[in-house]
């Protein structure tokens, strides 16, 4: 086995299991950041962006709080006062007040539910939008590195899992903190010493719980991670289902999936196990706290330092003191769960596009079509050169053909021209502008690319062709379809141009899909047209027809054509022959034929196979 191209990479020894792993999902390592206050602040900023909503929701919540406190008080008053003393009138009056209190509660609940949900949903909606828009603008390198399913899980599931926190968590925390402060103040004013003794356990609880907190957080991170893998696999498995069925791989995949699923379940149950420890822990602390209070209180009582009434009052407040603490504990727990998701969200939001427009980047004016590569080198992964030292120059209106064996680097040149990636070395000029200094959208909107992997969106055929040029009229769309001889088959479909195609254009033959994406590129009316094996799946007959029309279409545009069928390229103004990432020959067809080099061999070889 030749290991010629091993570059500065340490020799790795692989196990058989690694070799045979049914599926491998990279990305997604657990983030080992410490629990950061900054991150929490960042989360709460999303809520703080809606001060009016928060304020109104708080008012409504206070209404509820008032009713829950005042209701029992009124009942007590009615019993002790009116009923005890047999005053019917007073009883009715109390009942009316009670009813009014509950009516207030009704109104408050009504608005609280509405406002908190509005708040939660709005924040979630905005956050998701921010995340999606951000991810949308990241470079292809980002998408190369991770499975679609795991990107999806962050935009969808991770964001959704914050919903509870934003809907009720924040508002409840605030009211609980207020309640707590109120009770603390009351207790302090009743008797500072007793109060302090009661509070002493709280910081102790926090210290004790930090370990638990860490465990809980780690546990939920693991859960999110498994979910992400599960999703990555699902996305892939569903799309590759045809292959799975064709190769009857079902039982192996089932085993793999069940393992993954079980793994997720075990992690989830583990997270639950530690998470629900939190409640009992708070309860236990509260019991200990009460004990301390009573022990110390009775000590003071016997010393005659407090009265019986005071101690009884304290005992009654104790329940009120622990209630908000226990609720805050639950909220904290909820926050921990949310942190596992939010750090994943923020990680994406903090990822910068590797291909990024400079701040002072200008829009590219209308392109004339002069393209120059100057000593361009590129590696997708460090140490794995895809192209090396590539230089060429295309004059406006020229057609440049790229030929070479598979994997020679032709598509890579196209990727760099569209600035999907930035070159590792050298530069690319369009009309004399270094494309790194121009806005990439202004560049791409003037380049029409037919990618090697065609991608059809679900939707109508019309919309698909119109994709690059939404303003195009129906007639323009049809003209573009005619130009690539797709019109005929489209018209024969059930609803013609309005036929809905599904994901990736299933329901169309491969060639038909390619024709559509060809039409799409043409309709975008680009200054530079890139055809990366645009006719590979199209029959010779149609291809010939297209080619004739293409002469007209290409007039005045610079075109780059990658093709294995030589018929497509012999008319080119310049042919670049690639081999292992280098340009080994260049010139027109006849020049290259005379050279009797690589190109000549390529042609001769092809000819042999036909005859």
């Amino acid at each position, binding site marked *: 086995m030749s290991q010629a191209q091993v570059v500065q990479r340490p020799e*790795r020894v692989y196990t058989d299991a690694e*070799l045979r792993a049914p599926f491998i999902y990279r990305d997604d390592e657990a983030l080992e950041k410490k629990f950061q206050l900054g991150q929490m602040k960042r989360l709460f900023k999303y809520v703080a962006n809606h001060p009016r909503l928060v304020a109104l929701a708080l008012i409504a919540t206070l209404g509820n709080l008032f009713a829950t406190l005042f209701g029992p008080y009124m009942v007590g008053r009615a*019993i002790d006062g009116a009923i005890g003393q047999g005053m*019917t009138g007073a009883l009715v009056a109390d009942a009316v007040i009670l009813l009014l209190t*509950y009516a207030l509660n009704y109104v408050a609940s*009504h608005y609280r*539910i509405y406002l908190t*949900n509005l708040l939660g*949903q709005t924040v979630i909606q905005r956050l998701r*939008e921010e995340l999606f828009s951000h991810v*949308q*603008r990241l470079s292809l390198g980002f998408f*190369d590195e991770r499975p679609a*399913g795991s990107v*999806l899980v962050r935009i*969808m599931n991770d964001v959704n899992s914050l919903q509870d926190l934003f809907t009720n968590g924040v508002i409840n925390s605030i009211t609980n903190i207020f309640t707590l402060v109120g009770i603390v103040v009351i207790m302090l004013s009743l008797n500072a010493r007793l109060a302090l003794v009661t509070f002493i356990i709280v910081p102790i609880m926090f210290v004790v719980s930090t370990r638990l907190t860490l465990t809980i957080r780690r546990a939920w991170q693991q859960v999110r991670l498994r979910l992400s893998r599960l*999703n*990555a696999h699902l*996305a892939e*498995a569903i*799309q590759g289902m045809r*292959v799975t*069925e*064709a190769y009857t*791989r*079902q039982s192996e995949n*089932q085993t793999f*999936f069940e393992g993954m*699923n*079980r793994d997720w*379940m075990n992690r989830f149950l583990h997270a*639950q196990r530690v998470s*629900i420890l939190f*409640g009992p822990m708070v*309860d236990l602390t509260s019991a200990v706290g009460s004990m301390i209070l009573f022990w110390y209180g009775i000590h003071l009582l016997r010393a005659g330092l407090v009265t019986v009434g005071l101690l*009884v009052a304290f*005992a009654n407040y104790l329940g009120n003191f622990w209630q908000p603490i226990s609720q805050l504990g639950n909220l904290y727990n909820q926050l921990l769960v949310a942190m596992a998701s939010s750090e994943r969200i923020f990680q994406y939001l903090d990822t910068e596009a590797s291909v990024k427009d400079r701040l002072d980047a200008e829009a590219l004016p209308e392109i004339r079509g002069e393209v120059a590569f100057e000593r361009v080198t590129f590696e*997708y992964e460090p140490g794995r050169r895809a192209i090396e030292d590539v230089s060429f120059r295309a004059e406006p209106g020229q057609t440049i053909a790229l030929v070479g064996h*598979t994997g020679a680097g032709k*598509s890579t040149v196209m990727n760099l021209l*569209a600035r999907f990636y930035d070159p590792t070395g050298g530069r690319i000029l369009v009309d004399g502008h270094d494309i790194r200094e121009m806005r990439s*959208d*202004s*560049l*791409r909107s003037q380049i029409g690319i037919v990618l090697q992997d065609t991608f059809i*969106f679900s939707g109508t055929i019309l919309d698909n062709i119109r*994709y690059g040029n939404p303003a195009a009229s129906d007639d323009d769309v049809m003209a573009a379809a005619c130009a690539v001889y797709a019109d005929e088959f489209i018209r024969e479909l059930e609803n013609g141009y309005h036929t809905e195609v*599904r994901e990736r254009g299933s329901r169309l*033959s491969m*060639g038909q899909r390619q024709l559509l994406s060809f039409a799409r590129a043409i309709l975008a009316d680009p200054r530079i047209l890139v055809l990366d*094996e645009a006719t590979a799946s*199209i029959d010779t*007959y149609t291809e010939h027809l297209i080619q004739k029309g293409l002469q007209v279409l290409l007039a005045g545009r610079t075109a780059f054509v990658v093709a294995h*069928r*030589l*018929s497509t390229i012999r008319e080119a103004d310049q042919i670049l022959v690639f081999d292992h990432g280098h340009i080994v020959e260049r010139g027109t*067809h006849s020049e290259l*034929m005379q050279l009797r080099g690589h190109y000549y061999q390529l042609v001769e070889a092809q000819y042999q*196979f*036909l005859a």
Partner: protein
Amino acid sequence: MIDVFRRLRGFYQPHIRWLYWSLGLLVFATALGLAYPYLLKRIVNQVIIAHHYAQLPTLALMILGAAVLKGGFNWSYQYAGQYFGSHTGYDLRNQLYRKLNRQPFQYYDSVHTGDLMSRMTADLDALRMFLAFGANGLASLVLIVVFGLGLMYSMNVWLAVVVTCLMPILAVTAVRFDNRLHPTYQRIRKTLGVLNSGVQENIMGVRTVKSFAKEDNEISKFQVRNGAYFAANMDATQLWKRFFPFIEFTGNFGVVAIVLVGGWLVMHHQMNLGDLVAFLSVLWTLIWPMSNLGFLLNNLTQAVAAGERLLEILDAPDPLAVTGPAHAAVMRGEVVFSGVSMKYGDEPVMEDVTFTARAGETIALLGLTGAGKSTLVNLLPRFYDVAAGSVQIDGVDVRAWDLQALRRQIAVVFQEPFLFSTTIFSNIAYGNPEATLEAVRQAAAMADAAEFIEQLPDGYHTLVGERGLGLSGGQKQRIALARAILMNPAILVLDDATSAVDMETEYKIQQALQRVMQGRTTFIIAHRISSVKRADQILVLDRGRIVQRGRHEELLADEHGLYRRIFDMQFQDFAAVASAGGSVGALRVLSQRGNGE
């Protein structure tokens, strides 16, 4: 609603004892919850007020003990609930996956990946959540109400009757709420599915999006879907904000009614004050769980809406399921199509196709784009079934073959190569995971992939990204080809399997294939005459019919046939190429020979 749970029964029934455990423990935890205030009261009354200081340590220990016990029960009942939910969810998810693994191709022509994913994660989670804590919550609510009412009746019949009167109101409210909420939840689940598939498609098509600089368009498409999901959720909120407070108010109204009626009874000496106070305290303990009713109902409705979506997957018909004894045998590879017609839905795409391929023959299919070539070969492994006529292999209708046996002996290289995110080795060994490295190497060599694979720093260990990311188009195709070769099939189907490969490589591959495919039946779909000319039989398809058939020479003889036209076009190219090349002796000779025919 009941129906959904009845149909899902098989999944939760095996684990139901965990739900019972959870419920039982919940009852204990609730009872212990009552012990705590009782003990506190005793401390106040006996220790503080009555100065029995000696009792403090015992009472204190009891409180601690109660806290520990209650914590234990709380923890265990919650965990038992989660255990129940998770295990049911686990089984359900496995079954969904199994089901998806057996759906016919037709099914995948019409579903969205993102939507299926949403069902298998978000919807399944909604159901799991109900099982994990909604179910025992509801059950304990019922228990509390029954016990509470019983207690009330034992305390005072009149007052209990007043409370009972409220129950129908609550029941009617609950039913109405559920009726209104259900369609809303169906919409929420659906809009979530749509949003999910939108994002999923966007990520898959990100290259296309970027190549047209259409990020802004995609963002506004996303906003519409995100907005629809938001709106559906807010619709649910509109319902909650009407029903939840109402349920709460009904309970509170009960308190007012009891105060009034009870007050009247006390004043008229039908009841003493202490009993009223006791009655009220029972009512309080009833009201809190009542206010939870709305939340639990909500949880339930959501689970039902989600469950319906899961059942849609589970209940999808199984057209490939075997009925009767299936034929499983070693395949020789004789293929007979007789009068085959084929429809996608209602659209006929193939009509009256008849031909016979003897075992070991190479059959080539040629035709215009969309002529039905892929459709024809898809009938062999039953990716689709015929509408009329029959496809027979070794004299047995493919529908009578055991599906496993059939598919294991036919290897198809799809027109669009699909690779999975794993090592190159595992990708090649996809249909034959037990294969040795040596076998994989040989298959790769045959597909002319070994050379480039071995030049990679990690060789066969190289990780391939999703859909073969990190490889060039031709490299992907050759790996897909190696995968088929490794199957060592009786019938090999190459659907335009080398379109992205240069001709020289393609020629090498064909030479290699000819050796291994000796004695096996091969179907080749290609656009290049060079790829099909050596076939034993060439079928030329046009609009779903065979318009020409025969060997290369025979077909060339028909001056006006499609085959000849295509040949001329390709040949003309080479002639032109040759002439441009000027003094290329070998080429001229060959071109003269070509013209001579």
